[in-house]
């Protein structure tokens, strides 16, 4: 069967056969970079379109429906508009940092993509400490936001940056603990090992209620970390007009915008991998026939299906809930989520040690 695994391995073997190691590495680096950028662009287009359609359904309206069938080319047209736009810059900004900030946010998002297992045996970098790597790199993205907010020389931007700094630093803890609970159950940081440990059932089914709690906390924390409503304090358009990207326009703004969607994809991908078995197909006990049918669905479809389901959930949040206030947001983290996730981690550790999970 044609799968991503075979394609990538075949390509590697073919390249190694015809040339020495250095050019192979160089060519493969270029190919990976190109693939990542293409994936980025495609994800951006699809997710923005999806967000607009989801919003439209929730808001009893039609959404984009003019450009192309069902309006599928709307985001492409929007991108074209953003590219054509003048890249204006206000006076008295810190020019270097102002220009750098969108790229920092973007590159960070790209880096986290590396250990993502998109399909069986298909992954840019099978790093040993996958989950820890993701947590580590995602903490850089806050720097880009802080940079943008400070360099814009605008009080709204500064307030937005301060908010987002406080928010991301706090919610990283809860997200980290939620991830740790799965790590405790699996005993490995490697994303592939985590997926393989779910061969006989996804953790969300195997791990009793504590894993459900961890999952809910994870979803809340990553929504906050990606600055999505109801935790979009950094933008808060009705309070800070645009927050940290108030002064950005054109393609520079588009990079922030795109990075937000890529980040959503990444956190949902991680969520799907940790709790829903990544590219593992859905199996039920000893229903051999059913399981066999499920196995026929390619692993990449399973991964993207689960990820997009979680993305839909996050979009659903956004279009239903009002925004929290900054102090309520921090209270929620420090007074509720953090103690709960600490206790929950303890519980899960006990379950893991005693082997009480299925």
């Amino acid at each position, binding site marked *: 069967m044609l799968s991503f695994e075979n394609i990538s391995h075949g390509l590697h073997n073919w390249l190694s056969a015809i040339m020495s190691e250095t050019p192979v590495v160089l060519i493969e680096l270029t190919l990976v970079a190109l693939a990542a950028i293409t994936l980025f662009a495609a994800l951006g287009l699809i997710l923005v379109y999806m967000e607009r359609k989801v*919003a439209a359904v*929730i*808001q*009893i*309206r039609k959404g984009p429906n003019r450009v192309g069938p069902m309006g599928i080319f709307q985001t492409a047209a929007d991108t074209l508009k953003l590219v054509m736009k003048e890249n204006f810059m206000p006076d008295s900004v810190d020019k270097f940092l102002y220009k750098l900030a969108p790229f920092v946010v973007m590159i960070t998002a790209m880096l986290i993509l590396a250990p993502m297992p998109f399909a069986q045996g298909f992954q840019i970098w099978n790093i040993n400490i996958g989950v820890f790597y993701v947590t580590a790199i995602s903490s850089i993205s806050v720097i880009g936001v802080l940079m943008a907010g400070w360099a814009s020389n605008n*009080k*709204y931007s500064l*307030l937005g940056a301060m*908010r987002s700094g406080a928010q991301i630093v706090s919610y990283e803890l809860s997200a980290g603990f939620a991830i740790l609970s799965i790590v405790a159950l699996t005993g490995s940081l490697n994303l592939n090992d985590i997926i393989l440990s779910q061969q006989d059932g996804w953790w969300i089914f195997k791990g009793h209620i504590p894993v459900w709690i961890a999952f809910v906390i994870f979803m809340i924390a990553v929504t906050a970390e990606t600055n999505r*409503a*109801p935790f*979009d304090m950094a933008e*808060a*358009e*009705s*309070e*800070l*007009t645009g927050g940290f990207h108030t002064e950005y326009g054109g393609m520079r703004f588009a990079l922030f915008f795109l990075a937000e969607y890529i980040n959503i994809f990444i956190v949902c991908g991680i969520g799907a991998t940790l709790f829903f078995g990544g590219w593992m197909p859905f199996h039920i006990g000893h229903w051999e026939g059913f399981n066999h049918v499920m196995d026929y669905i390619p692993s990449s479809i399973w991964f993207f299906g689960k990820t997009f389901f979680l993305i839909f959930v996050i979009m659903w949040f956004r*279009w*239903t*809930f*009002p*925004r*929290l*206030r*900054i*102090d*309520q947001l921090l209270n929620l983290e420090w007074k509720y989520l953090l103690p709960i996730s600490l206790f929950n981690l303890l519980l899960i550790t006990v379950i893991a040690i005693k082997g009480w999970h299925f």
Partner: protein
Amino acid sequence: MIEEITTAKEGEMVINIGPQHPSTHGVLHLLITLDGETIKKLEPNLGYIHRSIEKMCESLSYRQFIYSTSRMDYLSAHINNHACAMAVEKAMEIEVPERAEYIRVILDELTRIASHQLWWGAMAMDLGALSPFFYAFREREVITDIMEETCGARLTMNYMVPGGVMTDIHPNFVKHVKDFIVQFKSKIDEYDTLVTDNIIFQNRMKNVGLLSAEDAISYGTSGPTARGSGVSCDIRKTHPYSLYSKLQFEEVIETGCDSFSRYLVRVKEMKQSVKIIEQLIDNIPEGDFVAKTKAVIKLPKGEFYSRAETARGELGVYIVSEGGTTPYRIKFRSPGFSNLSALNHMVKGYKIGDLVAIMGTLDLVIPDIDR
């Protein structure tokens, strides 16, 4: 203004909210002094949409000046026109036909519902929930369609004239209003599920923007803003005009004094308005829709004051006449202006996010403030 920015204390930050800001819903300019994110002081700076309607009215006839009031509080256009028409009628001692009164009150209440629905959506948007706006506009659209059918306009109605209404109602009016009531009653629960019962929403609103009853009176607030503080001030009850003395409805008063009370007052008021319309819509009497008046209205010498309850509070029309065809002086006591004056008191010590929520519950319409 410049000196205030420079005299801000160490560690404090002065920020301009507006005149172009998504949550001021117009060109309101607020100058706020912040300590971190906590508001220390707020000063409104008005006049960005000041058209000097009061001065203009001094050279308009008593038929014409009513139309300029549609542009004041454009969401309560009918009620504004009604108040002006009443002032002229009172001075001229014109008897308004029964049919006209019925039409007027029905349209007033429809206006109130439409205004509250716009407020409801906009306020949810201020709090960061974007969807309720569309739900509110689904019902509001029906009302504006009825208005368009009846008066030919969707926003600036200009339908009430001294002595009655300008034209008779459309033949479909009664049917469409009844359809609206059915639709509204089936959907109003959705409002509660979507917004009122939401825990984030309640946390954002409860115990925020406190305005005690005493302060509410001292700041001259009126309408739902004052009624949310437990002050009875519905002109329809305290100084009944038109048909209101004969109608069965309750004055909605909440005693929480916070943003959530003001919110509840408006949501419950919509239900009361529907109740009023239900009492009237089946019994519109036959007859004239406008009393016979002279072509040129001349008011007797003297001072006349009429009050009406708009969606935002008490509108006062104060006419000083020298006996001519134009008023000598007109003062519109607009509810928004007084309500805005309480804002500084209400937001002190709260966060920027609260400012937006509190401003949302005041339901400010900027042309009403600037006139």
